[in-house]
């Protein structure tokens, strides 16, 4: 089969086109609004960079452990220089302070927070009650975006105390992440992650997942595409080197 035949096969999938719901006026309005917000944010970041750096994403301690910094606490920035930039004034994400992001990236949209459950049948957030062998988790996400449309997520998975009839109160990082990274497709092999350690895995799509199992029981996943990948590698390397 030639490339053209595969193309013809794909064409059959779009032989019947759904109703067109595009609204070009809304694109223009939204684009103008987005342009204004970007301009204001850029000015804000420039001003913030002059002020005190409020915190860093992860403070590296001897032994390779990582811990959260309070959003209000001042801390010395120990992040790699490639990542260091001030993001003063950002809200914490599920209690974690985000103080260093790659240059040129800004928060996009609002943080999201959902309840989900993780167990032997994987990850689900379909509103069904948590089963006895599942752990309820709060999933908090923040999206950063660059001017070139490269993006990365920070996701905090926070196991919540067991509900009545619930199961364990702790859950291993690999179980959470393996179920989250690639549901319904090829499973990702994620090594066991001791508390306080960081691992870097590549999923079967194209992106990297920087996974941090925190001593507090939270699992932090930094997912990215584009040139941010190398910065994440640098970051993980720094965390590992510290151990």
């Amino acid at each position, binding site marked *: 089969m030639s490339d053209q035949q*595969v193309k013809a096969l794909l064409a059959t999938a779009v032989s019947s086109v759904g109703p067109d*719901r595009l609204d070009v006026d809304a*694109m223009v309005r939204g684009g103008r609004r987005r342009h204004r917000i970007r301009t204001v944010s850029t000015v804000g970041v420039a001003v913030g960079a002059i002020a005190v750096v409020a915190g860093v994403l992860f403070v590296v301690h001897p032994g390779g452990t990582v811990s959260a910094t309070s959003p209000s606490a001042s801390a010395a920035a120990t992040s790699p220089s490639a990542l260091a930039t001030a993001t003063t004034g950002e809200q914490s994400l599920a209690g974690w302070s985000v103080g260093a992001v790659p240059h040129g990236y800004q928060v996009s949209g609002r943080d999201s927070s959902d309840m989900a459950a993780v167990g032997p049948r994987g990850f689900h957030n379909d509103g069904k009650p948590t089963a006895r062998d599942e752990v309820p988790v709060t*999933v908090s996400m923040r999206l950063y975006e660059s001017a070139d449309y490269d993006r990365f997520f920070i996701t905090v998975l926070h196991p919540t105390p067991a509900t009545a009839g619930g199961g364990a109160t702790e859950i291993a990082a690999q179980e959470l992440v393996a179920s989250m990274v690639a549901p319904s*497709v090829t499973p990702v092999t994620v090594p066991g992650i001791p508390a306080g350690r960081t691992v870097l895995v590549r999923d079967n*799509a194209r992106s990297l997942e920087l996974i941090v199992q925190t001593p507090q029981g939270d699992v932090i996943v930094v997912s990215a595409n584009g040139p941010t990948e190398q910065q994440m590698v640098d970051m993980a390397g720094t965390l590992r080197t510290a151990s």
Partner: protein
Amino acid sequence: VKQSAEADFRDWVSARRPRLRKTAFLLCGDWFLADDLVQDACTRMFAAWDRVASSGYPDAYARRVMVNLYLDHRRRPSRREEPVEALPDSPTVDSDDDERGDRVVEALSGLAPGQRAVLVLRFWEDLTIEETASVLRTSAGNVKSQSSRGLVTLRAALEARGMHSVADTMRELS
């Protein structure tokens, strides 16, 4: 964004609209979501239209933004599709072509998001391996392997849906 740029943007959307929608649909398999992807992508592009237009490659920008939006959509747990054993009753099928198209969409849904993006960019958008790698910000080798695996998975999915003749001819590619 200046008025002249807005007119330029509107012209570009008008010309590319059908193609963008089809590409988005092949990525996600849902016309409502496809329109959301295109709407969101175009909104982001208009916010930076001066820069996008001056690059001379607005189509390439559109592909990258849509693919990023699609992959991010798949990543968000709150929006993730759940696989089901049996599909609900679909609307009335008008022709054999429609039924065949539905089965191809179902088969595509079994692909990993990255593999699906590679196949759509390579075979639908006619991008070279290097161009596909550029859109996905990955290596040419990764595109080759994802393309090969994606075709194998797609072939198996087509066979499972009774499209044996198509699957047989796909063996040569994968």
